[in-house]
């Protein structure tokens, strides 16, 4: 494994141009960085500059640690590969949710074996509602407006229609 500084985009693109393997590690645990769709977006941005965009069609899902075998073995499973057909906001949000669901399935086997020492959920109802609003905006096909930016009335109406249809 070769490490490169994470802000070195030139080197990241260079890896892709050379058709080498690239691993990206995405941390989502910090409250101020909560985002409804960063994990897949970073991949898509990196691939987009090299002609490999929209090819990442096998989202590897996280390792699952079985408490009964925790002393000796770590079984790994992939529930089912997720396809990301485009970099449209709705697709990014859907893929991110799929990753979150897969991660949740892995964690529920033994939640005490995972890192539990950070605030992982919104501190307030308002923050939770803001995250939900941003996810709805992406599902409606609009780019993530970012934290604390109220959606326009028209955008909210679209989001409500999407929610009602889902």
């Amino acid at each position, binding site marked *: *494994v*070769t*490490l*490169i*500084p*994470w*802000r*070195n985009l030139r*080197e*990241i693109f260079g*890896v*892709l141009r*050379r*058709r*080498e*393997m*690239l*691993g*990206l*590690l*995405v*941390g*989502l*645990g910090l409250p101020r960085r909560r985002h409804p769709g960063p994990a*897949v977006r970073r*991949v898509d941005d*990196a*691939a987009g500059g090299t002609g*490999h965009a929209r090819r*990442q069609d*096998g989202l*590897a899902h*996280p*390792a699952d*640690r079985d*408490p009964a075998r925790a*002393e*000796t*073995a*770590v*079984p*790994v*499973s*992939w529930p089912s*590969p997720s396809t990301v057909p485009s970099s449209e906001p709705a697709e990014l949000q859907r893929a991110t949710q799929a*990753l979150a669901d897969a991660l949740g399935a892995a*964690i*529920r*086997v*033994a*939640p*005490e*074996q*995972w*890192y*539990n*020492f950070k*605030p*992982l*959920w919104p501190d307030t109802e308002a923050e939770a509602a803001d995250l939900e609003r941003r996810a709805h905006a992406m599902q409606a096909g609009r780019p993530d407006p970012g934290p604390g930016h109220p959606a326009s009335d028209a955008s909210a109406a679209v989001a409500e229609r999407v929610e009602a249809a889902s």
Partner: protein
Amino acid sequence: VTTRGRILLAASWIACRLPERSLFRLAGLAGDWWYRAKPGRAAQARRNLQRVCTALAASGRGSSAVRAAATDPVALERLVRSAFRHAARYYVEVARNPAVTREWLDERLTLDDPSVLAEAVIPGNASVFVGLHFGSVELASLFMAFRVGETVVPMETLDDPGSRPTSSRRAVAPVSGSSGCAKRGAN
């Protein structure tokens, strides 16, 4: 290398040469001590686990220990204490990374469906792997090194320059002796 870095390297060297099972027992004791010494940290873990266990119990999922923790404070506290033990064990596993071999990994890592990996890794084709930093980063790194092959990983740099050789060694050591992979601009 700073003094702190040297201490970390020395601790890793020792950990690689002691029996794994004994080290895990020590890690359990250290976790118990950690749990008692950091009540604020324990409170955060308690809040997180309470939320998870309540949600799982409400939907009829989770192990019996998890479902019990949803309503029983004693059972919840057992999970909180266990979280500290596992966190301590994680640091032991990190320290022992340089001693990990392909055989060690094969013995402990079972792929549910290897064909998914074979489909993703095609010689000559570039692939992008995304991992979420929730669990052990090192296990994913070892998996990539031994089961996938040469891989480039962008990483955040450490604030303490003296510790950089330690962290770089963790990630690079498993393959550095086998395929001559260069450490390029690391940390």
